[in-house]
């Protein structure tokens, strides 16, 4: 297993390098640069000022030189500074990553816990009224766009039934506290989790139904095992394998962020940072974000593969 992990980590290095080259190249083709972001078309801009900005940002250099400079700097652990306001990129990403991990992580946790539980529940009651109701709701959960859910949820639970605040991560003017953060986190995390609940519920239900009809499950029942043991030990563990894959596919959202929810709830996360970076053509920030995100995705894929070995004892890595 150790050799496998080391081998995967080594393979990831050229993959990461390739990703940075591709992103850098694609970005070079987008019209506009950070200097053109500074120009507000509705205000009279001094072109001399723009030229100075372009030179200060190194935008007058050829592309290979700009990439080499960025790579050299990154290899020393310095992700550089934002072109928009000079903020250190590593610091900005770290702040936003925490906010996104908190929101998306909470939503994902709720989604996994509730989704798997409901998936098992509906699988064991196939074709019952509960099965139809919950399966129907899962279609709604999967289909409902996040921005509609967010706006609707904010309107209902913040104004009509004033249970939650109207956005932000904390109450302005109050000293930071876990209670206050949880109070602000509750509504966006719950709304975001609805999509995850729907996905995991459907996946678990489908997997459970497949496994429930396997011969070894029939054998376990024939042996007189208690139903709870049949479900929890013999059925669920096997049914979880595809669910692990789905969890692995959704984990990157912890780092990529959820633009719509972050925008609606004024949650300063990675999603809105990404959007801001592209809109302002903040090249160093885009490269930094992609490097961090790509690294996280590759590590998560590795962790998902390792998780398979724990869930399915038939799988061995050498």
């Amino acid at each position: 297993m150790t050799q496998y992990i080391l081998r995967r980590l080594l393979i990831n290095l050229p993959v990461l390098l390739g990703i940075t080259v591709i992103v850098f190249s694609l970005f070079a083709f987008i019209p506009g640069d950070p200097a053109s972001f500074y120009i507000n078309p509705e205000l009279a801009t001094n072109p001399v000022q723009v030229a100075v900005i372009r030179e200060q940002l190194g935008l007058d250099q050829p592309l290979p030189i700009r990439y080499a400079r960025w790579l050299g700097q990154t290899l020393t652990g310095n992700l550089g500074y934002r072109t928009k306001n000079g903020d250190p990129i590593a610091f900005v990403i770290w702040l936003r990553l925490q906010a996104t991990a908190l929101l998306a992580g909470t939503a994902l946790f709720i989604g996994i816990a509730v989704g798997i539980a409901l998936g098992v529940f509906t699988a064991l009651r196939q074709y019952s009224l509960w099965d139809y109701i919950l399966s129907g709701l899962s279609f709604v959960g999967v289909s409902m766009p996040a921005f509609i859910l967010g706006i609707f949820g904010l309107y209902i639970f913040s104004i009509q039934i004033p249970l939650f605040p109207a956005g932000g991560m904390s109450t302005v003017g109050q000293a930071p506290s876990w209670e206050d953060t949880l109070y602000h986190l509750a509504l966006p995390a719950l709304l975001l989790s609805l999509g995850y609940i729907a996905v995991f519920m459907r996946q678990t239900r489908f997997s459970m139904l497949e496994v429930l009809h396997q011969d070894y499950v029939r054998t376990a029942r024939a042996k007189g095992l208690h139903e709870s043991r049949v479900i929890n030990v013999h059925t669920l563990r096997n049914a979880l394998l595809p669910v692990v894959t789905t969890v692995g596919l959704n984990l990157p959202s912890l780092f990529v962020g959820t633009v719509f929810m972050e925008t609606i709830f004024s949650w300063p996360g990675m999603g809105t940072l990404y959007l801001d970076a592209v809109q302002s053509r903040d090249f160093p920030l885009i490269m930094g974000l992609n490097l961090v995100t790509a690294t996280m995705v590759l590590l998560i894929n590795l962790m998902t593969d390792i998780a398979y070995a724990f869930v399915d004892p038939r799988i061995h890595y050498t």
Partner: protein
Amino acid sequence: MDPLTVQFSLKATDPRFPYKLIAAYILPQHILKDQDPSKLAKSDWFLASPVGTGPFKIFKYVKDQYQDLVPNEYYWNGKPKLAHLINRYFADETAAIIALEKGEIQFTYVSGDVAARLKTNPNYQVFEGSSFVSNYIIFNFRDKRFQDVRVRQAIMYAIDRKAIVKDVFLGAAYLEPCTLPQKTFWPSDVNWYDYNPTKAQQLLKEAGWNPNDSLEIWTYYTAQQQKDALQAIQAYLAQVGVKITPKFMDTPAYNAQFYTGQGWSLSYRGAGLPTGQSPRPFLLASAQTVDKKAWSGLDDPKLEQLLNTAEKSLNDTDYVKGMQALCKYMNENVIEASLWVGTRYGAASSKVKNFYYYPAPGGGPYEDNPELWEVVP
């Protein structure tokens, strides 16, 4: 010259100089004297620990979330009544309006449709004013088709601007005869180009316009209202045989291409011209174009002469007369297809007292007395 007197030395006479001082700020020499001026714009000092002459000062700054300001006890007009003035960041207008309605904030910018709704609610007070941003269609005179004034006039006659202001902007805009949003600059005898598609078709026919021609119209506007306005313009022009296709771009992409003067024939854009701002950059700026002509490729000595005459006037009366002459010339020759000036709104809770807000600089009273603002229970 002394602690209360500053002397400005200019290279040339500039009667408009006093009006340009609205963009000048007093900075603390004792803090910034050793700072490289070229690096000032990126300095975090302005956000984290600025020193200013305004009514409030920074108390707390939580990045990407809010700025908490407290009264500046040394403010020249007296210490403000408010204990805290908090500037919260909302990425989405709807979220800000919900926070206003919930009472979490007491003021926000709102769009015209929201302002119309809140105006009838006694819990809110709505402020409105000109944005001093002229929306217009700029012609690229490098495209020979637009060198004929009849084509430009036809485009003006073809668009029912009143209907667009009423139905798309819900009345939150006013028509303008030239791309100068101050009404004092409009002479009384301008042509308002009232909607007349028959006349538009006649002018296009006289000019030899080919109805099979298709053009792109570039814009950086992404707000839905502006998109709707541009699509309405597209429909009106199609009725008279001018086929345009909107090309929506984000601001950096637009800036990278538009200012070269190449690749476009028409553009729907805005020009911010508050009091004191000269229209010169929007009419004549040429530093970024490939051929060193104005953005629009316009080469009009008469226009430049009228602008120079106005800006060299030594008193306001002559300045206004000069700008009126400029406006008339722009209007008759449709130098730009001047459309409308947007109105902008702010909404505050009725619990906020002695508060004044005006959307654009130079459009309201000289003093908005922030030291008197207060929120009553």
